[in-house]
């Protein structure tokens, strides 16, 4: 990481006064990166790219959108019909949201599988979870803007969750609404916040990268970099690898945009919001379904187990607590996971528990889309229980009892040994 010497006199002049070029050189050119990162490490930069796409398309959409209950739906349709390539911008933004969550979920699970959150990268992980929370808020706010049936009723359901806050709940809900129901002040407020939060995310991403660049990337082996032989410069190796990933990603993303733009959407949202007509099934966007399943999983009599608690915590409150806990618990994952070994590759039991956890969240997602009744509810409850069991019980215990496999001496040792690990990096 020596300071580069610039030949171009203008660059030299600028860099002497404001070392942006040196900064870029250190951050994306010579930035030392483990040589064995596999394709699961592509999703971080992909997420960053989608954020930029979302902000760019969003700014253009906002130029043509009207944040008023009587005009919002029609203004979106005008974008779809009369604004030049408005349909393209809008579908890019709409599907971009879904893609953002797919990419971030993979990024998150990557971190879990390879134990990326462990010392010294706990803050990096926590900032990541904060970005995830900000993303969820942004996505929810954005979904309200087209003012379709699901926009309206989704907003009604989600804002009502805050009513469980003791003492101030009702006041907070009315403050969110700007009135006594979801109405024009709510839409205005949501539009404003939907425009603001992406820039908050952008700031958080910057801090996320700052933390990342302090201790550098982890790697599939989970052993620290021990010297130059373990590292390669970010450019050209990972710029080339990430670019290829971008190509593959764009094929999937634009495949949806051009050929199935409404695949992730709810048909009901093409019906203008009507406060007098409740849709038969209010479902959130697909990326919220696991949390929706957890929210609805807590049975009415569940709390009775402790006798006095039902007076204090009704089922709805417990559901909301469960939902937020499911995400907030991720923040303390670095301490819940007591194993010294990072990568699931050397943790034979964790390997299986990880995949069961992944399947568990997918099951939760499917149950979130079903009506909360009968077997769907039962499966949802079991999956919810397992979710917490995994995080709160299995993770702490596993570190104490699991027999891990021996770790390689270093990344380069594993590479030169010619194991499968080496190949994955190529």
């Amino acid at each position, binding site marked *: 990481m020596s300071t580069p010497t610039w030949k171009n006199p203008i660059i030299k002049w600028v860099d002497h006064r404001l070392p942006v070029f040196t900064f870029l050189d250190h951050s994306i050119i010579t930035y030392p990166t483990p040589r064995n990162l596999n394709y699961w490490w592509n999703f971080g930069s992909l997420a960053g790219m989608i954020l930029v796409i979302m902000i760019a398309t969003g700014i253009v959409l906002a130029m043509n959108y009207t944040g008023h209950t009587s005009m919002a739906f029609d203004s979106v349709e005008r974008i779809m019909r009369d604004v030049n390539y408005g349909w*393209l911008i809008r579908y890019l933004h709409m599907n971009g949201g879904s893609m953002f969550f797919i990419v971030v979920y993979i990024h998150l699970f990557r971190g879990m599988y390879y134990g990326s959150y462990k010392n010294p990268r706990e803050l990096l992980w926590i900032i990541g979870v904060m970005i995830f929370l900000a993303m969820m808020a942004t996505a929810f706010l954005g979904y309200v803007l087209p003012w379709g049936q699901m926009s309206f009723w989704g907003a009604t359901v989600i804002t009502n969750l805050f009513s469980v806050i003791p003492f101030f709940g009702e006041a907070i809900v009315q403050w969110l609404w700007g009135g006594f129901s979801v109405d024009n002040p709510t839409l205005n407020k949501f539009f404003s916040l939907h425009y603001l939060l992406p820039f908050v995310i952008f700031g958080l991403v910057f801090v996320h990268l700052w933390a990342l660049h302090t201790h550098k990337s982890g790697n599939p082996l989970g052993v620290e970099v021990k010297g130059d032989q373990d590292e390669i410069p970010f450019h050209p190796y990972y710029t*080339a*690898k990430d670019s290829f990933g971008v190509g593959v990603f764009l*094929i*999937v993303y634009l495949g949806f945009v051009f*050929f199935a733009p409404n695949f992730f959407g709810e048909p009901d949202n093409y*019906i203008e919001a009507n406060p007098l007509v409740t849709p038969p099934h209010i479902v959130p966007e697909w990326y919220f379904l696991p949390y929706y399943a957890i929210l609805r999983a807590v049975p009415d009599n569940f709390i009775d187990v402790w006798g006095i608690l039902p007076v204090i915590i009704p089922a709805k409150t417990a559901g909301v607590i469960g939902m937020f806990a499911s995400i907030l618990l991720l923040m303390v994952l670095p301490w819940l996971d007591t194993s010294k070994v990072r990568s699931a590759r050397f943790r034979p039991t964790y390997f299986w528990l990880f995949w069961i956890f992944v399947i568990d969240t997918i099951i939760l997602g499917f149950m979130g889309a079903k009506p909360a009744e009968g077997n769907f509810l039962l499966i949802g409850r079991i999956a919810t229980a397992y979710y917490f069991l995994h995080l709160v019980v299995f993770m702490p215990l596993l570190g104490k009892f699991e027999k891990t496999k021996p770790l390689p001496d270093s990344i380069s040792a594993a590479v030169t040994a010619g194991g499968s690990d080496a190949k994955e990096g190529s």
Partner: protein
Amino acid sequence: MFKKVIILAAFVVAFSSSVNVGSVRAAGGAEINSQDWTTNGLFGFFDRKQLKRGFQVYSEICASCHSVRLLFYRNLEEIGFSPEEVKKIAAEAEVAAGPNEDGDTHDDGELIVRPGKPFDRIVSPYPNEFAARAANAGALPPDLTLMTKARLNGPNYVHALLTGYKDAPSGFKLSEGMNYNPYFSGSQIAMGAPLSDDGVEYADGTKATVGQMAKDVTAFLIWSAEPELEERKRMGIKVMLFLFVFTALLYAVKRQVWAKLH
């Protein structure tokens, strides 16, 4: 790695073309058969002759109760009407012309009107929801512009509903003024069977059977919901072809760069 890319690409292609395929159960419980729409698949397109027939069915039958309020008369040029024809179609409608010099919108209690122009929205049958409900025994005929996007499996659902009217099975309790249709939620619908053979006389000589009219008007509604569909899919093909080549090149570059390392 190339294999993975090809598998992924194949998945995307197969997936996007199969989105509309397969039969699904309607809210009413009856199974909806998939129709062969020209707009289906990667190379979906609009059959403009069919869209014109569909517009004829809409304007002669559906338009007496249902609006398409997001469409303008000028949009009809996109389905093959000439500018002159559009002017003529628009002029047949009466649109509010007020206020006049005196600032009045009504003259003697009657709305001041002028003939429609291409830049006007296609005139809705009722001035508002209350008038619509009053004229239809309390039922609201929904706007149709986005109908095929606003229902699950929209195009096939609309077609099935239009052709699905039957006598109610014995034992089925039909409410007053309702009609039996197994595709509608609850199997009963306020709208009477709108289509009957030769309900319209097609300008292009096509035989106007119920099935033909249902297909034509649904095709028209697919267009009204997604007027960009044809342009979108054509652009998509070009974008995909570019991306396949570009991504293959990026992969080659990546291999080349990393080859130095081993």
